[in-house]
């Protein structure tokens, strides 16, 4: 599904990723672990196509298509979603209106008819419950005045609504208390199936305990230095990252 080959990427002229290879198949959950500054978020940003992240070498294909040639919105329409580490507040833009616009863009892309406002609100009233958000959230501006936890729930809510094939969860566990963490993990687990894949980026194994990843990859200084299963995450929890550094 997602094939990353020898990716090198830089930000502001500084090389951050120094040759990453990674394949994600349908239904798999991969976790990328690493310290701050190891390049985890850069990897997420080049998959979603953020402007200031420049790929200098290598390729990324998604279902056989060259992803790097595609605009951000086209990558989203192709089925890629990112839960942001720091979701931005957009004053004046109504949450429900925004999310319906996003859903309709997707429906239209797949040649389906758009959802009207009434049906959409019916759908959303159910979805907000599953991430433990109040219904009033729908009429508020996107992430505006949201607490850290609300922002992360909002990200997951968008994922559940847009039903992407590949979800990139960038530090979704950061800033969450244990209850919120469980709610979010449960939301993600219920959403998992044999066609949906996940790339989870984190520096703790907290969230992973609830999510049962298939693969763990350790990113140090822009390279994957070790891959393994959940046992690797447990080792990292005990021993830290230094034993993997050359």
């Amino acid at each position: 599904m997602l094939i990353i080959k020898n990716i090198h990427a830089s930000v502001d002229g500084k090389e951050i990723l120094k040759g990453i290879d990674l394949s994600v198949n349908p239904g798999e959950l991969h976790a990328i672990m690493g310290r701050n500054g190891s390049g985890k978020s850069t990897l997420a940003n080049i998959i979603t196509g953020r402007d200031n992240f420049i790929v200098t070498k290598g390729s990324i294909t998604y279902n056989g298509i060259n992803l790097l040639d595609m605009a951000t919105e086209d990558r989203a329409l192709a089925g890629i979603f990112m839960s942001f580490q720091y979701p931005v507040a957009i004053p004046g833009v109504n949450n429900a209106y925004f999310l319906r616009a996003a859903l309709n863009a997707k429906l239209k892309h797949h040649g389906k008819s758009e959802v009207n406002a009434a049906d959409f609100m019916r759908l959303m009233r159910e979805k907000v419950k599953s991430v433990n958000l109040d219904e009033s959230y729908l009429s508020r501006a996107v992430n505006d005045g949201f607490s850290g936890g609300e922002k992360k729930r909002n990200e997951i809510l968008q994922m559940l609504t847009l039903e992407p094939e590949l979800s990139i969860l960038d530090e979704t566990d950061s800033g969450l208390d244990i209850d919120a963490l469980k709610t979010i993990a449960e939301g993600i687990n219920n959403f998992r199936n044999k066609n949906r894949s996940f790339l989870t980026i984190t520096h703790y194994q907290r969230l992973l305990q609830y999510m049962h990843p298939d693969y763990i990859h350790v990113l140090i200084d822009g390279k994957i230095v070790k891959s393994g299963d959940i046992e690797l995450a447990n080792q990292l929890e005990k021993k830290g990252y230094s034993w993997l550094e050359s």
Partner: protein
Amino acid sequence: MKQFQKQFDDLLAYWPDENQELRELRSTAFDQFKNLGIPTKQLEDWQFTDFSSLKKIDYRLSRAKDLPQLPDDITEQIPNTYLLFMINGHYQPDLSDIPESISVTTNLENFKANKELYLDHKSSNPFSALNASMMNSGASVTIDSNVILEKPIQIIYAMMDISDPLMNHPRFVFQIGHNSQATIVEHYIGSTDLPYFINPVSNVTIKNNSVLNHFRIEAEDPLASHIAASNYLLGADAQLNSVSISSGSKLFRHNINLNFNDKGGNASLNGLSTIREDQHHDQNIIIDHSHNNCQSQQLFKYILSEKSSGVFNGKVVVQEGTKQTEADQTNKNLLLSPEAIMNTNPQLEIYSEDVKCSHGSTTGQIDAEALFYLQSRGISKTKAIELIINGFAKEIIEQINNEDVKTYINNRVTNWLESVLIDV
């Protein structure tokens, strides 16, 4: 200046039998205008705006012969409003709809009874003095005490199909009695191939315990110059909710002066300017707090596209000895083009200790983070920009507390945005 002198002489000759006191006021006002002259960039309050174009065109005062063929229906009328319709400076009672409970009179009649409302002849604002010297249209609208007006009064001042570059100096006097509530929409529109100059002055008095919603829509033709002054005087516990939406005219200047005449007044002044091409919009606001327990809020936003330029000058003065003042002043600007220019100067002048004041200003482009966020959800770049700009404008539109007016203005802003985004 010569062409203004000629127009002034013509006006006196045209109305030889006018009230003597009014003629004297006109003459004093014109002397004041001549003394002050069209402002140059050397004057601090006018420095960011070039008014020289007003001298380059021979504007002539509108006459009876300038009445065009009247439209069959008035497309710009907002649903569920009373209407005062004026075209090329001429009031059209047959196209208007005003109930008997609202007193509408000419300025001449009102001048005889309320001379204190026509004292702009000594104004330090040359355009207000010019208006006092040549006021040739407009109306006086009076809401009695203890009247709750359910429907807004919409005043449409239209300039259409003119045969020469015309100028008009409308004077509006709005008097709201005690314990009353009213909504007035002052709406300027234009449709012509020639430049014209509109120089309105609106003097607004809100008596004790009354509420006025004053919405102003400036949608002049792109070749027009619109120089306006709105002067407010608030009584005890009076409330003003003002929203000014400006998108028309090549040159726009609006002076807003607000004075509290007693304690407990509350004024909310809001503005949204949406401009493009070579439009220049300049707003100058002075709020003078000289009585206790008064509050004022200012929120002015500009959306600037292409080579347009904007000026915001806001000043709050809190006079010595004034207690329990709350004043907030915010200016936010969105630049849609690297060639657009914004000059902003929010100021506080505080001579009292018992105050709670804040001010701030931001000018920036569309937030790249927000844009990326929306695009990452599959929303096209154009649609994402539209969402962000609409969100920016919404904060002002939400201040309009009448649904029909709000819908009308919201549609205008959305249409403007769509026309601009075609070119992005």
